[in-house]
């Protein structure tokens, strides 16, 4: 099997996870116009919760489901407890410009600190229900494990579910309307505050799943998902930061791209690559790779 092909296959499962994170960031961005830097902390906390449940019950499935639910509840609570008062107090001047950034960074510090207090700082291996060893097809081994297959499948399922909710249900319509034009949505009777809380919940759940899926192949530590946040943000920007499909495609593109860099240049270059990609997209195609021209001002 050619190296190129196997590299691309590795990129697929990584890309799926980046897509999930990108979608989480996009959901919050669309509903609140805030890039939620605490997403990494939320994901870490819900992953540790999953780990704890696995230790207590031994059931991987219960662990994964409960950590997704916990992620959702946590996201909703953050909106109610932090974002709602923050939006109400929106002032002016330099403080207002940095307030949401600072608030989510502060929350990130709190979440990671709390995780560190309960679970310590050592690297932990998160369990997985499937083998992380490569599958063999026709006698030759490929760098794609049963767990990778599960990762791609689970991410795809979440994206399809989100896409169904957004395109086919009344809730989805109100979420889109509130995102694009809060004023018109409110006049049409959409309770935009409640819709925003739901958006934060969905984002928290997606982030939680991303955390559970990435940690079996890496390690879990209080700040182990910071990189996922950066890559998720890059993927979201590549996709234009407005569209879920854009974010999903951005994640996949980044997954493939980073897998190639990892294979042919080495791990020291991956961060730099992500940064260069991010900057290039922002400066050359600010509307994202698939967005319409003239769409946004960065």
């Amino acid at each position, binding site marked *: 099997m050619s190296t190129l092909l196997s590299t691309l296959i590795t990129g697929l499962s990584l890309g799926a996870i980046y897509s999930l994170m990108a979608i989480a960031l996009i959901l919050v961005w669309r509903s609140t116009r805030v890039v939620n830097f605490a997403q990494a902390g939320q994901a870490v906390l819900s992953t540790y919760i999953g780990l704890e449940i696995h230790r207590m019950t031994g059931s991987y499935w219960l662990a994964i489901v409960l950590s997704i639910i916990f992620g959702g509840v946590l996201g909703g609570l953050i909106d109610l407890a932090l974002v709602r008062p923050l939006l109400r107090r929106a002032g002016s001047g330099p403080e207002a410009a940095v307030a949401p950034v600072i608030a989510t960074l502060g929350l990130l510090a709190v979440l990671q600190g709390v995780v560190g207090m309960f679970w310590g700082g050592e690297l932990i291996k998160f369990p997985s229900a499937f083998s992380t060893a490569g599958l063999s097809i026709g006698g030759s081994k490929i760098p794609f494990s049963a767990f990778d297959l599960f990762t791609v499948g689970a991410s795809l399922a979440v994206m399809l579910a989100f896409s169904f909710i957004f395109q086919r249900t*009344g809730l989805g*319509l*109100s979420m*889109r*309307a509130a995102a*694009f*034009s809060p*004023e*018109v*949505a*409110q*006049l*049409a*009777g*959409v*309770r*935009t505050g409640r819709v925003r809380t739901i958006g934060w919940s969905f984002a928290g759940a997606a982030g939680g799943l991303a955390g559970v899926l990435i940690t079996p192949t890496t390690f879990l530590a209080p700040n182990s998902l910071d990189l996922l946040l950066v890559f998720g943000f890059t993927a979201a920007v590549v996709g234009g930061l407005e569209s879920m499909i854009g974010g999903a495609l951005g994640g996949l593109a980044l997954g493939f791209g980073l897998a190639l860099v990892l294979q042919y240049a080495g791990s020291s270059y991956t961060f730099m690559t992500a940064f260069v990609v991010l900057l290039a997209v922002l400066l050359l195609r600010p509307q994202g790779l698939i967005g319409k021209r003239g769409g946004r001002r960065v």
Partner: protein
Amino acid sequence: MLRIDSLTTDHGQVRAVDHVSFDVEVGSCTAVIGANGAGKSSLLRTLSGLVKSSSGSAHWGDVDLLKLPTSEVVRHGVAHVPEGRSVIAELSVEENLNLGALWRGKDPDVTVTKSEVLDLFPRLGERLKQGADSLSGGERQMLAIGRALMARPKLLLLDEPSLGLAPIVIEQIFHTIDTMRKATGLTVVLVEQNAVSALAIANHAIVLALGKIVASGEAKAIASDESLRHAYLGY
């Protein structure tokens, strides 16, 4: 009845609406006219809770409008079509319409309302699946009004429906508003800079200048008032 009493709204240092009082009978149409910056839009935006009033009151029947958050206003039968063809360009025509009736939930009547709206604006029916961004200015205004009608309102607040439209389209839209009101007993408050078109379909009119009511009365009387034209156009 819509009863507005001494309503005052401030935008920072500017008093946009200054102790405005007037009543609107159920089933009638009141035109609010005045130059740019006279406070017409601010008046409507205060009624639907988009901006907060400083003092005064506004009651629609028993409902204290100033106490309601914007999303609840429509649940009490008041629909507001804001200035500037307020459709959501990212949604399709049909989604824009559906949005207007979302709060009514699974009410079977919604489909009836929808067919009524499409009868009123057949152009929208031809474009249901298209993105709202593909519509012309006039069609967007129709969609904005149609979205408001989907809520089956008792009181319609219309802000400058003629803004930036060609005269022939303006005439068509005003004609539709007029027939709709007469057919359904809808109460209409119509904010307009295009005074004559508005006065042609209104029963009553008030003239605003710098946030204050400077004239009010029968629409016909206002239309033939020379002093109004002076205040309005400078001649």
